[in-house]
């Protein structure tokens, strides 16, 4: 059953000087219940912009250019902000931001922030019911529930804060959870604990699908079922985790995988792939392939013909010359 559908979504920003920045272009994918999609890309590739678009949250200066986002068959496009706030956010699509420390209101206790979320979406629920519900939910997270709920963010460890944020974001059992680098600020041991918690919540069907955004490919290999590689606002390759990690086809994906270094016997002889240069400026119109400037196998026509997604070896690749 398709739970989440994105069709040719394009998003742009308007700068103060009236320039359009096409931060996200032509993104399409579908997700089934229980699935985790990993989105990988370097900083500035449009990942975080995509997040807002996927929630139907178009706060100026961000605007939808084209395309459709659907959650369980219901479109999120062309709806009023209040409609989105009331009926979509937290209930259908929820977000786990990066940097839990800054995401939590420093002058409110965890239980109060969480209570605000419940109160914002459920009518006629009394304080007592809210707190019972909170306690039951936080008991699942493997922390000292009472201590965490009664603390201010500054009194918690980084791991407790991140788990609290995940707890708050999933309080109302959203269908889709979008996690934007949820573990990048944590040390590796805490990261593992947090990922285990996420799997646990998915298993208990507290949420049904997840998009996990990170630039750490080894982590995605273990977290995601499918992986999308993003470059300069476009998905350049979309396939299963195995396909993308072990058998990449797009030149950019190949370069990313080739640059990965790991502490394993024999890796010392490996020569990591190197590509110079930087992604193109999205404020200017680009006619050709966005990776052409840096592509080691680019052909002359790549610089002026747009590349579309096509199917190679069971996955989508945005390159006509990939094999």
């Amino acid at each position, binding site marked *: 059953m398709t739970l989440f559908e994105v069709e040719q979504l394009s998003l742009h920003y308007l700068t103060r000087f009236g320039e359009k920045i096409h931060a996200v272009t032509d993104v399409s994918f579908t997700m089934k219940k229980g699935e985790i999609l990993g989105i990988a890309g370097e900083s500035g590739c449009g990942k975080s912009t995509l997040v807002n678009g996927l*929630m139907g*949250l178009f*706060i100026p200066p961000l605007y939808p250019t084209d395309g459709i986002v659907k959650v369980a068959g219901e479109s999120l496009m062309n709806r009023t902000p209040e409609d*989105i*706030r*009331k009926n*979509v*956010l*937290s*209930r259908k699509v*929820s*977000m786990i*931001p990066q*940097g839990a420390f*800054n*995401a*939590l*209101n*420093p*002058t*409110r206790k965890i239980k109060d922030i969480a209570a*605000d*979320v419940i*109160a*914002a*979406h459920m009518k006629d629920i009394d304080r007592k019911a809210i707190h019972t519900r909170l306690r039951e939910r936080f008991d699942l997270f493997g922390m000292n529930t009472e201590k965490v709920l009664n603390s*201010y963010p*500054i*009194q918690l460890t980084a791991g407790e804060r991140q788990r609290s*944020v995940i707890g*708050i*974001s999933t309080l109302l059992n959203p269908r889709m959870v979008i996690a934007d680098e949820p573990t990048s600020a944590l040390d590796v041991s805490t990261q593992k604990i947090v990922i285990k918690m996420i799997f646990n919540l998915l298993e208990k069907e507290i949420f049904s699908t997840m998009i996990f955004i990170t630039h750490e490919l080894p982590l995605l290999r273990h977290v995601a079922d499918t992986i999308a590689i993003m470059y300069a606002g476009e998905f350049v390759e979309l396939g299963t985790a195995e396909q993308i990690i072990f058998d990449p086809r797009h030149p950019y994906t190949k370069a990313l995988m080739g640059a990965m270094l790991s502490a394993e016997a024999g890796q010392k002889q490996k020569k990591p792939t190197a590509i110079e240069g930087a992604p193109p400026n999205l404020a200017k119109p680009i006619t050709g392939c966005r990776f052409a400037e840096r592509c080691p196998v680019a052909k002359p026509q790549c610089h002026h013909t747009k590349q579309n997604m096509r199917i190679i070896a069971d996955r989508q690749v945005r390159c006509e010359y990939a094999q």
Partner: protein
Amino acid sequence: MLKQYPSLRYILQRGVWYLLTFAVAVIINFFLPRLGSHNPVDIIMGKFSAGMSSEAARAKEEAYLKEFGLVKVRNGEILRDAAGKPLKTSNTEQFVNYIKMCFKGDLGTSFQKYPKKVLQVIIEAIPWTIALQLPTILLGWITGNVLGALAAYRRGAFDRVLFPAALFISALPSFVFGMLLLYYFSVVMNWFPAMGGYADAIVPSLSFEFIQSAAYHYLLPFLSIFCILAGGQAIGMRSMGIYELGTDYIKYAKWLGLKESRIIGWLFRNAMLPQLTGLALSLGTMIGGALITEMIFSYPGLGMAILTTIQNNDYPMIQGCTLLITTSVLLANFTVDILIGFLDPRVKAGLRIGKGN
């Protein structure tokens, strides 16, 4: 010993610091008027001795010298040298005397209203000042902050009108605004009385007549302080609010779909914390702050008293008043320091771990 009570330790720490500051303030208060080339008595005598017989002038001068602690005194009598001239005290002796008197709550005797005690003059004037200032400052502060928070959150047309207006109003010195109000509403339109805290014909009492008259006289000075304070606070709150709006926790609140009213509530509370310092400052300078406004409206408060003392070089009064102002500022700051310590968990947590502040 105090380890288990971080809050108490914090209060004590701040208390000691403020006591030290107070000591410095007392020293400054004592020495600054003595910086000039003349001692205050010379200046006064230069002004008022004209027309007095030399005998009377000398008696007056000696009375002043005695009051100001410039000559040595034993059992109420001025000590004299062989030639009958009063023995001058050194600066240190004067300082010791000054401190002793301060501890006794004796701020000296007013030159101008001789032999009225400084403290008495202050006590008579202060209720008027507090009655004028306290409600004005609180109301102005609250109004300004609410408007500022709304302007920050709503932006748009509301902000485009409110912000320049607030900026313009806060650019007006409050006394200038007072003068304009007075000129237009009492002199030109003759709607309000121009002077005093109540009609001359009424004797202050708790009668309806008196209260009505006082309220009538209250409105213009109130407006002149209120508008400017509210304008200044609105600007401060607006920029704090815009800063807070850009923070991640507000973005997260929006992502979670919190209600707008709740987000404004968060915003207001967090942006308000730094604004509290502004409130402390206003409350602290309350006593001396509306000096000129009181002067413009001839309001019978402390500002008026200070003004006449300055004009008459009434040094014991000046020192008494400045000491009072300094003390009230310090007290207000101390209170806010403590208050912020308890209201802001960031500071509070800092106390517990032993970091921060």
